[in-house]
């Protein structure tokens, strides 16, 4: 009697674990099946090489490149903001700051990541863009620069916290040896600690990339809705995620080609984040140095 109860409970618990696998299967199945019927009407070559994306106009083009360029432009800006700041914070907190200072500042930085993204979108549109317009004349009210900068601020804690963990996981002896040779904190941090923790730092940057690519509300609010192939940060651009939002807000018939475009865009996004995530797992496993 007791044995059957134990078995039933174990089965119930393992079923909950299975739900997570079903979720993954569900995501892949949904994206693949809708995209499959999309690619029966639009050729894959057009999708990958056409330089225009106009599924909602009368003159229809289905080239994903403008959405990809928009996504990567904003992502690059975000990472260029978050990487130097995040890494400097990590190095400062692990190699310079007092323990007490670190323990108070770290949770405060986490607040940056807890703020809902729609709030960051508001920030980009109503504070950062007007500010940038003072510096860059002729900047439109929707642009990639403002969205990218704000997204960068949002992912700072991601870079700083993961990199700091990697730096702090190093054995004390490494730094002590360096100090013993007469090196300054600066030399120790950049010539000993950062190289030794490089795998963890690389992982944090890859994950920041993945996060920025999938971010939606900031770009939907502040970057605009013009799918144009450009690398100029002053332009209004449309990212993959912003396009999905644009279609979802409109009145698109289920089963129509317009409806299927959001799944084709979605699978493109999924592939990129999936690859980035798995590179980060691989780096973590392959290059993690073992210290005794």
């Amino acid at each position, binding site marked *: 009697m*007791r044995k059957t109860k*134990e078995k039933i*409970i*174990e089965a*119930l*618990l*393992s079923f*909950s*674990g299975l*739900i*997570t696998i079903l*979720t*993954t299967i569900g*995501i892949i199945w*949904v*994206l693949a099946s809708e995209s499959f019927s999309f690619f029966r009407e639009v050729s894959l070559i057009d999708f990958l090489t056409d330089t225009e994306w106009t599924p909602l106009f009368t003159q229809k083009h289905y080239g994903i490149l403008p959405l990809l360029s928009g996504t990567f432009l904003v992502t690059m800006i975000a990472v260029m903001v978050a990487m130097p*700041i995040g890494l*400097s*914070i990590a*190095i*400062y*907190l692990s190699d310079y700051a007092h323990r007490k200072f670190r323990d108070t*500042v770290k*949770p405060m*930085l986490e*607040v*940056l990541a*807890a*703020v*809902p993204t*729609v*709030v960051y*979108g*508001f*920030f980009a549109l109503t*504070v950062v863009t007007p500010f940038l317009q003072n510096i860059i004349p002729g900047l439109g009210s929707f642009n990639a620069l403002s969205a990218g900068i704000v997204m960068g*601020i949002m992912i700072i*804690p991601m870079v700083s916290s993961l990199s700091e963990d990697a730096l702090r996981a190093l054995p004390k002896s490494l730094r002590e040896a360096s100090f013993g040779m007469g090196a300054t*904190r*600066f*030399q120790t941090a950049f010539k000993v600690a950062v190289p030794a923790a490089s795998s963890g730092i690389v992982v944090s940057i890859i994950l920041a990339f993945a996060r920025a*690519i*999938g971010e*939606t*509300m900031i770009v939907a*609010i502040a970057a605009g809705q013009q799918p144009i192939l450009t690398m100029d940060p002053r332009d209004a651009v449309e990212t993959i*995620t912003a396009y*999905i*939002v644009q279609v*979802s*807000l409109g009145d698109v018939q289920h089963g129509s080609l317009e409806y299927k475009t*959001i*799944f084709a865009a*979605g699978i493109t*996004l*999924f592939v990129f*984040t*999936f690859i980035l*995530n*798995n590179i980060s797992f691989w780096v973590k496993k392959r290059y993690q140095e073992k210290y005794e």
Partner: protein
Amino acid sequence: MSKIKSNRLKDNAFKYFGIFCTFIGLVMLAIFIGNILIEGLGRIDYDFLTNLPSRKAAKAGILTAWTGTAWILGLTAIIAIPLGVAAGVYLEEYGKKNRLASIVEINIANLAGVPSIIYGLLGLEIFVRILNFGGSLLAGAFTLALLILPIIIVATREALKAVPDSLRQASYGMGATKWQTIQYQILPAASGGILTGIILALSRAIGETAPLIVIGALAYVPFVAKTPMDEFTVLPMQIFNWVSRPQHEFVINAAAGIIILLLITFILNGIAVYLRNKWQKKVNW
């Protein structure tokens, strides 16, 4: 000698640069919250909280939005907490070495990295179309529950990992079965950590906008939801809708809505941090 000087200089320069970087993000956040308070605080009054949405900015309120957020919070919790905790217990206490567990583990790491808007596409197809929930609260709650499941599972596992093995051995030694041990010893001992994870996950869920837009949550809902099958809006949706309008009065409304949303988010996060500290101090194994 000059070499030493320049090294010292670099060392000190980076110290101040590090402090500058540490505070720049926080200063931006402070500027921004200050800006929102100036814009929106005057707009918050009893009417703002109890009025239905309106085309006129001055008459519009967030009644349907905050009740929708409350509904979503409750329903998502009911769905995600048992599933997440159960999966965490299974992975940590039962399936440590078997194949299924290792596949599930890699899978959870991957799911945690999937953009939230992709969960929206999943919800749109599975819950809205195939299960025919439509753009209802239930479809939204299921979608968000799947989204936060990995967070709850990971937090549960971390909390269970922190429980020392001696507790398990002692319980087995008294003749308890595996489940009795988990139910009466392990789960109570890990409850602080699990609760912290659950609260953080729920605070993430109520801030989400993108997946709900995709499953068809509406920006304009003129009634308060009464059943889980009703159409709905949530605070972030309402804010997004107001931000997208050109008139300045709506921007003020958005700022006021953001104050309420941030208040809820910060309260939840504050509770989580408080619980974590209290729990860490108490445990002395």
